[in-house]
């Protein structure tokens, strides 16, 4: 079977649309038609076409204008212009504007057939190119970690470097920065790559359950232990153990793990027989463990055992240059998963995404793009699709503030914005000036000199 294309036929004459429609149907191509330039743009906005056949002479927006608009917004779409005999100069204009070919109508069936052969080979080159581009992205992605910014380039170097050693690693970084992905990448580049990678989220498990997950238990060791179970420390056998949210484990668990790291043996719950274990430990935390030590919540000796090498992940706001790359990646991922054709984003929407501070980092961006793709009614994401990320909200760094604190900060901002003109500020705030005066007095605020 020949490759099938999605083709849009644009002509104001019904008879031309129909004859081309019948013609292309004989090849099994997927065909749609539009009677005008604006109708064509509307259809392209809804779903992608690989080829447009456009009549140059149409009332309103003519074929050349449509061609220019399409080439500007959807440069990968191929356009063939149909023009009347004797207007060869307009055909030349079309070619300069980026048309792939032109047909002088009426044309012979074999002429259209030849043009289509050429288009199909161009289309093949284009998809090969996209395929290659995809491969290149894969390489820079470094096992699903996406980014080409200097902090990420530096991170890739660090991952390769630390993967060589067998020392314990502590990955630090804010929530949503991809600590588990980095742990997996280190494992994948290490000598233990062919052995298991076992990840446990310590923050999600109560202490007793965590203990049995890690160390396993003998049958009857506690109520509900109907079978013996090997713990992850044993299951990981030679691989990498990834303990996420290590800052959340209890003091007792810290002691137990410290002993495992020293002795390389474990006793499962309810058993007296030691089992030898071998693994590389990678831990991760979003907390400041040094501060935890000062407060006496985290054992210093355990800290030094897990923190032999430190890898810090930058928050997304420190590598905003990667946001377009990430947005493209998530857009493709969720378009694929939802089988929707959402493959582009308006520049003002992208500007909003890059200006936002992303307190939840890559994970938050991922969720935001997923939500936008799922709800989008067209193939292009617009500012409206991200209206829930209001700029006012975006400008406020996320801090665990009380309502009172937010209120004070907001009133101060309005006052500053109005140069402390009480009447105007009160108007904006929707309260009367007396109330505002009282508020200022109660807070002991002074107009800045």
């Amino acid at each position, binding site marked *: 079977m020949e490759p099938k294309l999605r083709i849009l036929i644009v002509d104001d004459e019904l*008879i031309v649309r129909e*004859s081309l429609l019948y*013609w292309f149907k*004989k090849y099994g191509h997927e065909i749609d038609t539009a009677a005008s330039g604006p109708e064509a743009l509307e259809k392209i906005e809804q779903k992608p076409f690989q080829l447009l056949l456009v009549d140059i002479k149409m009332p309103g927006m003519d074929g050349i204008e449509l061609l220019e608009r399409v080439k500007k917004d959807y440069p990968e779409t191929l356009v063939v212009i149909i023009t009347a005999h004797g207007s060869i100069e307009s055909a030349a204009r079309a070619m300069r504007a980026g048309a792939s070919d032109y047909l002088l109508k009426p*044309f*012979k*069936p*074999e002429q*259209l057939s030849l043009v289509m052969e050429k288009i199909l080979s161009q289309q093949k080159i284009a998809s090969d190119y996209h395929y290659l581009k995809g491969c290149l992205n894969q390489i820079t992605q470094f096992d699903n970690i996406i980014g080409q910014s200097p902090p990420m380039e530096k991170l890739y170097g660090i991952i390769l470097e630390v993967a060589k050693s067998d020392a314990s690693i502590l990955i630090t970084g804010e929530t949503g920065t991809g600590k588990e992905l980095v742990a997996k990448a280190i494992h994948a580049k290490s000598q233990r790559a062919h052995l298991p990678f076992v990840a446990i989220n310590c923050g999600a498990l109560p202490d007793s359950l965590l203990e049995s997950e890690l160390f396993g238990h003998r049958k009857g060791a506690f109520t509900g232990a109907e079978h013996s179970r090997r713990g992850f420390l044993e299951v990981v056998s030679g691989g990498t153990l990834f303990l996420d949210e290590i800052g959340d484990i209890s003091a007792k668990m810290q002691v137990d793990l410290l002993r495992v790291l020293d002795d390389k043996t474990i006793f499962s719950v309810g058993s007296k027989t030691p089992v030898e274990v071998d693994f590389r430990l990678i831990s991760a935390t979003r907390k400041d463990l040094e501060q935890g030590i000062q407060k006496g919540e985290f054992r210093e000796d355990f800290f030094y055992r897990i923190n032999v090498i430190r890898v810090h992940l930058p928050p997304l706001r420190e590598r905003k240059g990667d946001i377009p790359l990430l947005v493209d990646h998530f857009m493709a991922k969720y378009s694929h998963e939802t089988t929707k054709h959402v493959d582009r984003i308006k520049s003002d929407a992208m500007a909003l995404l890059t200006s936002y501070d992303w307190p939840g980092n890559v994970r938050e961006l991922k969720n935001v793009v997923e939500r936008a793709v799922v709800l989008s009614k067209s193939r292009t994401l617009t500012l409206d699709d991200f209206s829930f990320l209001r700029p006012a909200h975006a400008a406020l760094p996320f801090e665990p503030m009380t309502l009172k604190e937010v209120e004070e900060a907001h009133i101060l901002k309005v006052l500053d914005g109005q140069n402390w003109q009480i009447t105007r500020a009160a108007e904006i705030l929707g309260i009367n000036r007396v109330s505002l005066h009282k508020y200022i007095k109660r807070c002991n605020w002074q107009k800045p000199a």
Partner: protein
Amino acid sequence: MKERIGVVPLGEVPALAVDVIAANITAYYRLPADILLKRPIPESAFDEARLKYNAGLLINMLGTLDFSGYSRIVAVISRDIFIPIFNYVYGQAVQGGSHALVSLYRLNRNADGSTPSASLVFERAAKLALHELGHLFNLYHCNEPKCIMHFSGIIEDLNKIPFYLCGDCARRLPR
């Protein structure tokens, strides 16, 4: 309805050409094919500007005629036919439809202007009919050069393709 193909001459058409077409339909599609009474060419399908017959209008006209007892109709015409965007076509059929049309007009001249033998003209006519009938059976153009559903651009291309469907197209044929 069981498939039964009617081959109908439109206007004056050499009887032998119609016979050859019907015989080949039976031979290659293994379907009964009967030669029907000649019907007049509706002059309303003639395009004064192009001096040719509009294939789409002719097909529409065929749809208004009574061909009871026949599941598909292949009409044969000696005049030159076109569809609006093209200068001419050799044949026309609506994908998955019931009426097809083939024109003998361009079959008796080679691309270089020489005249082919009568037997070659009949061969071309038969292939054209088999190809258009394939469209009625909802077969698409096929990439395989050794297939009747391969698109023939210039007349010599019709010489190169075989009478039969390739394996892929044969499997797609509704049974």
